[in-house]
């Protein structure tokens, strides 16, 4: 892939999602068009997940993420690896941004760009949206509340702490797990139930007469 240009963004009232149109120039020079959709809450979630309050960086990350190798599945709980992925996204944005240094093609807002979009069958709602700054459209459509960010961040921090703790806990060797399972299979249910109470003397059922409360009141009422 040679470059990715952000053409436009719009909020679709029917699907309640942000749609971003992109023009992709492949290594062989061929051009194709991509549409990316995401829920408006994505910005807050993404910001909390990657420990940043920079909304522009968040939008950059969301838009460039499909074009970089995915982050390792066990990396997200670890801050250093999240930071490394943010760096990967920043570098990819620089590498894939068209040569004029702008996210948009050189002829932004030009009739040529709109004509190219119409030529491949892209609808007018996208073509007309080219006249607006896609980043401003996204910001207008997506909430970015510091208090919500903090709640989401605390939620993620708690779950990630557990994940890190689990990854640091050595698991039992397979042999010992098998031995444990074998021991349980060979243990009668009655032995399991009474194993923890073996030290105390338990009365046999029905051996002692019950203590009955409320007799006097019942007799008095009758």
């Amino acid at each position, binding site marked *: 892939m040679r470059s990715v240009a952000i053409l436009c963004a719009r909020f679709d009232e029917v699907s309640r999602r942000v749609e971003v149109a992109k023009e992709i120039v492949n290594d062989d020079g061929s051009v194709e068009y991509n549409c990316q*959709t*995401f829920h408006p809450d994505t910005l807050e979630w993404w910001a909390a997940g990657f420990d940043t309050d920079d909304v522009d960086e968040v939008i950059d990350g969301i838009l460039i993420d499909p074009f970089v190798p995915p982050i390792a599945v066990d990396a*997200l709980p670890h801050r250093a690896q999240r930071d490394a992925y943010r760096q990967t996204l920043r570098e990819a944005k620089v590498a894939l941004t068209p040569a004029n240094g702008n996210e948009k093609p050189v002829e932004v807002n030009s009739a040529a760009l709109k004509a190219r979009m119409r030529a491949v069958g892209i609808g007018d709602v996208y073509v007309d949206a080219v006249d607006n700054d896609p980043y401003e459209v996204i910001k207008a459509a997506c909430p970015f509340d510091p208090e919500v960010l903090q709640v989401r961040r605390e939620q993620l921090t708690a779950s990630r702490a557990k994940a890190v703790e689990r990854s640091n806990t050595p698991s039992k060797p397979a042999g010992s797990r098998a031995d444990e399972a074998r021991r349980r299979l060979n243990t009668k249910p009655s032995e399991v139930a009474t194993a923890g109470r073996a030290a105390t003397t338990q009365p046999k059922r029905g051996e002692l007469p019950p203590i009955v409360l409320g007799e006097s009141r019942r007799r008095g009422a009758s």
Partner: protein
Amino acid sequence: MGNRYLVLPENLEGKADIVSYVADLYKRAGDSDSALRIGHTAIEDGNLTVRNGDIIVSESDDTVVLRILHGDIPEIRFFPLGSVTTHRASLFAVDFAPDPEDTDQSVVLTIETDVFPTVQDGGKLLLSETSAILSHQPDASGGEESYLWLNYGFNEIANYRGRWSDQLQADAHQGLYMGAFNATAGFSTWTHTYFTPFSTTMVPLANVGVSGGTLTWGLDSYSASQFTLRFGVSGGTKMVTFWNFRI
């Protein structure tokens, strides 16, 4: 000085004090209440039997928080303290078999309304000899019941009643993420980004169709944060359905 519970006042921890004790005596005298009351009592190596009556646990102001009912359907009722007192929790055992000739011993943990006639209204866990049901049954609040019913009439059969969400993600550890949308014309690839990257990779099971025709398409890429579909032709609106699971 001890009170009716034979507890020293300094150990009452906010419960009855001497004034409320006297007030309680006055109230009991007015009600001709001469029932036996005992303080801290231990029953060593024996049973406690209450015949033809309930066991009630209450606050010092007689607000009942738990009740073990007598009768042929053993039941424990829980009355959580809080601003909402319209509902209670109940744990009871019953013969679940619809046919009187059959038996299907079961135990039910349920949320129900606290006003007679009681109505099931909320979550329910029903474990019986023949099946297990995890349900939400809002009979008083209104709405359809949803449940997961294991061993549903046939051995090993599980039945789910309810519906699935459409493109909604609650957190990074969600196990399933599904939905349906239309991919509008003109784009050769379509990327669906999740609310937040999942904790592990989501594997898409997707399907793409066009009205009145056939279409070649494929999965272009997927990860914990998104999946991208590639279409053989960019023209025409595509109907996309997907059922993604986390591995």
